[in-house]
Each structure stands twice: as structure tokens, then as C-alpha cells.
């Protein structure tokens, strides 16, 4: 009996690395944006905090969470890649990532823009885990929507 190769497509090394050593761990004390995501089906949780400068550019990012490797690694990768992006750019990134999870193929320049996040493409082969990968991203979308409603 052995773990199938397809399992390695899901749990790429970079994903397991983010799971074991999550980046941007810890909530910021005075965030400009904050949102909590919860997946009621599996109990996975992500809390995301960010600071903004005057031009709606993301400064610091901190997250905490609890859940499976895919949900937590995806949130860690997201958190690590948000700093320096404007909210519009972050929003665009979410839309690209959601498209990928829904089966859209990436153009080479999109894949390059996603960087290590592109490793999560393998999740598509495991439809039940797509919602895990998306948790941090929908949490970010909620945070941006809340901010813009203010």
C-alpha cells in the first residue's frame, strides 16, 4: 500500500511548508481591515488583519487560523503575497485565484504573477478541498467589501 502520486499533486512541498511554518502569523493590534472566515462544513477558520496606507495600499498583514493544511497553507500564501498591493490589485488577485479554483487555465503571465500560489492549482483535482483553499481568499474579499462599505 502506498500514497498515490496524485496526493503529491495536492500536497506540494511548498504547501506543506506553508502549513508547517505559516507566514504572517498573528493578528495585528490596530488593523484597518479585519475579517473572519469560517467554513461551517469542516470548522476551518481564518482571521485576517491588514493595515493600509493613504493610497489604499496594503502594508502589514497578519492572520490566524485553525484547520486543514490546505486552508491554512492557502491563507499563509495569500498573507505573504498581499503586502504592497493596492486593494484593487488584491481584489483582482482574488478573482484570478477563484477562477483557477473553478477550473480556468492560467495564462503564463498570470501563473508567473501568482508565484508560489500557483502550486495550489492541484487542489482542483480534489473538488471537495476547493472550499478549503478558498477560505482565506473569501475572507479577504469580505474584508475589502466591509472596508468599502464604511
Amino acid at each position, binding site marked *: *500500500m*502506498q*500514497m*498515490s502520486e*496524485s*496526493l503529491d499533486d*495536492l*500536497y506540494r512541498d511548498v504547501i*506543506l511548508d506553508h*502549513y*508547517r*511554518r*505559516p507566514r504572517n502569523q498573528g493578528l495585528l493590534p490596530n488593523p484597518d481591515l479585519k475579517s473572519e472566515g469560517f467554513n461551517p*462544513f*469542516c*470548522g*476551518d*477558520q481564518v482571521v485576517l488583519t491588514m493595515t493600509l496606507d493613504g493610497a489604499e495600499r496594503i502594508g502589514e498583514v497578519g492572520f*490566524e*487560523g*485553525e*484547520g*486543514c*493544511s*490546505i486552508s*491554512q497553507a492557502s491563507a499563509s500564501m495569500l498573507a505573504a503575497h498581499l503586502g504592497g498591493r493596492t486593494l484593487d490589485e488584491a481584489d483582482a488577485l482574488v478573482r484570478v485565484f477563484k477562477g483557477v479554483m473553478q477550473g480556468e487555465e492560467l495564462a503564463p503571465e498570470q501563473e508567473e504573477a501568482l508565484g508560489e500560489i500557483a502550486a495550489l492549482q492541484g487542489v482542483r483535482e*480534489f473538488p471537495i*478541498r476547493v472550499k*478549503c483553499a478558498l477560505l482565506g481568499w473569501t475572507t479577504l474579499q469580505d474584508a475589502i467589501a466591509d472596508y468599502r462599505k464604511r
Partner: protein
Amino acid sequence: MYDVERVRADFPILSREVNGVPLVYLDNAATSQKPAPVIAALVDYYERHNANVHRGAHALAVEATTAYEEARAKVAAFINAPSPENVIFVRNTTEAINLVAGAWAAERLRPGDRIVSTEIEHHSNLVPWQHAARTSGAELRLLAMADDYTLDLSDLDALLSANARLVALTHSSNVLGTITPVKAITDAARRAGARVLVDGAQSVPHLPVDVQDIGCDFLAFSGHKMLGPMGVGALYVSPDAMEEMGPFLRGGEMVLEVTYADASWAPPPMKFEAGTPNVADAIALGAAVDYLGALGMANVREHEIALTAYALERFRELEEAETYGPADLSIRGGVVSFSLGGVHPHDISQALDSCGVAIRAGHHCAMPLVRSRLNVPATARASFYLYNTEAEVDALVSALKRTLEYFGDADVRKPR
């Protein structure tokens, strides 16, 4: 002598492969697989007898009605109900419990009354009572779980002392495997004048259940967890409790006489089976009951106790594993909920799947129990049935060892 290999041969699905390896199906608390006679009963019904029941004098209608009512009689005999009229066909356990909430509790509960349930319930035996309490003005109180994963009965008399009208409890926990002392609790509830609903979703498929021996007023269970098809279940109602129930759903099939202004109700069980029922699945449930009866429920129970003992023994090899459930196997069903170091249950489940081993991961529809009493966000759960083998337990344990290797130092991660 219980011949598990002969039993397995009756289940076509058990010979399939998953991910290139033989299926090891250990998610029986979620749903059971189906033996050939149950599948054949479904096909036979639709190929030869399909017609609507309780109406029409043509041959097919008579055959369908006869088979449907025979199935009711089989299910009634299986749980030793006094009469087939005490068995109402429903979709599943959840619907059965909602039927009691809608047809009994909504009629009988008054402000100040008390519903007593427990901390180890499935959502389906908790959420309807939260709603019933809210809408009637009754209060909902819970028997606590003790440290050994059994119910703490020290509060029982106090909880039953004042205006307790209903006790709703599981017979066997889908998370812990705990088999509750339903008979003793029913006796105590009777003395206090309360009715008793037993959630038999995890007991009726796995051990001998006798409603007259227990003395309960309601017993709810699903067909699909006991070799029957999905979409049919049953609610037993005692003759006394039946008298206290109004209709559940209103419309066709459940009426005696209808005028433009009013309607009167058919006698039970028809009164509670509005609309065209799930005839084919009820008949196939009858076939499932025949199959279980031929095996003998005491034999099924004995097989599962032996398998659970073997599994718990093998789990001791896994230093990282923690299991949740009573140590005394005489009060434990074939359920092993566990955690495995820092590997998240969903990752365990995914890794096991790649070895062909099917288990469940999550809160098992018992969110407060898992999160507030076991104090974990989720557990992994292997659950056994009459066709599982020690070799399959071995496959599970090997796959868990591989999972630990695969995720390696994942348990160095300390969330918060």
C-alpha cells in the same frame, strides 16, 4: 459461526477499487453499503410492481400496497413494535424527529415545560428541540457527558423533577460510540411523567433494539444506515403517544373525509404519511430488515465488538493517536473517533483515501460535542459494520502510519 467473507460476497460495492487499491469502507456511521437482495428489491419493484399505494383496485396497485404494508410489518417486528400501525415511514431520522417536534411537541408543550436532552446528541436530535423550546416557551436542559464519554446521570433526577415533558436522547453516539442506558433513563422519565424519544440512527442498524423492552414512546431511525436505501426511515410511536399527536404534513393520503371547509384525519400511521410515500425504498428497507434478521442482530453486535476491540488494540501502536469513546466495549458501538498528532482530520481522510480507506473527518454533525466537550475542531472517525474485517482494520492502521510519515513534522505546528 459468523462468516464475514460470506457476508461480504453479498455486497457488490465491496469488490471495487478506489485509487487502484481495494476499497476499505469504514464510514458506516455515515451510511452503510447495500447487499444484493436490497438492490434487487428496488429493481424488482420498478420492473414489476410500480403503482401508487392505498388507491386503485388494479393488480399493480394491490401488489404495491401489499408489499409496502408488508415492509411496515417487517420493520415493526424488527424493533418489536406492538403493531405495524405504530411504525410511520419517513425520509430519515432527522425527519422522524422533526415529525415528533411538529406533531407531538407543538401540540403538547407549554411555557414552563422542560425538554431534557444530552450533550452527546447529533444535531438532528438537538436543533429541533432548540426550536421547539423557543416556539413553545419550554426550556431545554442537557444531561452532561462524563469524563469517560458516558452520560453523567447524577443530574438526571434533578432534571426530571420539574415539568419535564420529554426526554430526547441518542441510543448510540455517532461520534463516541457511547451506548446510553436508554432503558434506565426511560424508567426514570416514566416516573416523572415525561415521554421519551430515542434516536436509534446508530443503534437499530447495529444491535438488537426492542421498543417494548426499552419502554420508549418514540424511536427514530434511518434505513440507509442499516443496509436499506437512502430516502426512507421509520418512526416508532407508542400507542399512548400516538393519541397525543396531531398531523405533521397535511394533504393527500392522510385524510378520512374532506369538505370544502374542513377535513378529518385518517387513522395512524396514514395520518402521518401525507402524499405519495417512498414505496420502493420502504420495500427495499423490508429486504434489508430480512437480511439483518437472517444474520441475527446479536451476531452483528458480537462481530462489531470484536472488531472494535481489535481496532483499539491496533491503535495503541500509534503513539500520536488519541481516541475518544468509552473503554468498556459493552457500552460502545463500532465507532472509533480519533486525532493523530497535529495532522488535521481532513488531511488524514485525504491521505487514507489515497490508500483506498474511506473514513469521515469533521464534527460529525455534533459541533457542540466536538468543539466544546472534546475540545478539538474536528476528529477523524472510523466506523465499522457487519462486513468489515480485521484485515481492513490492518489496512487502516498501515495507512495511518503512512499518513504520519507523509505529513512528517506537521505536528510541530502549534496553532495559537
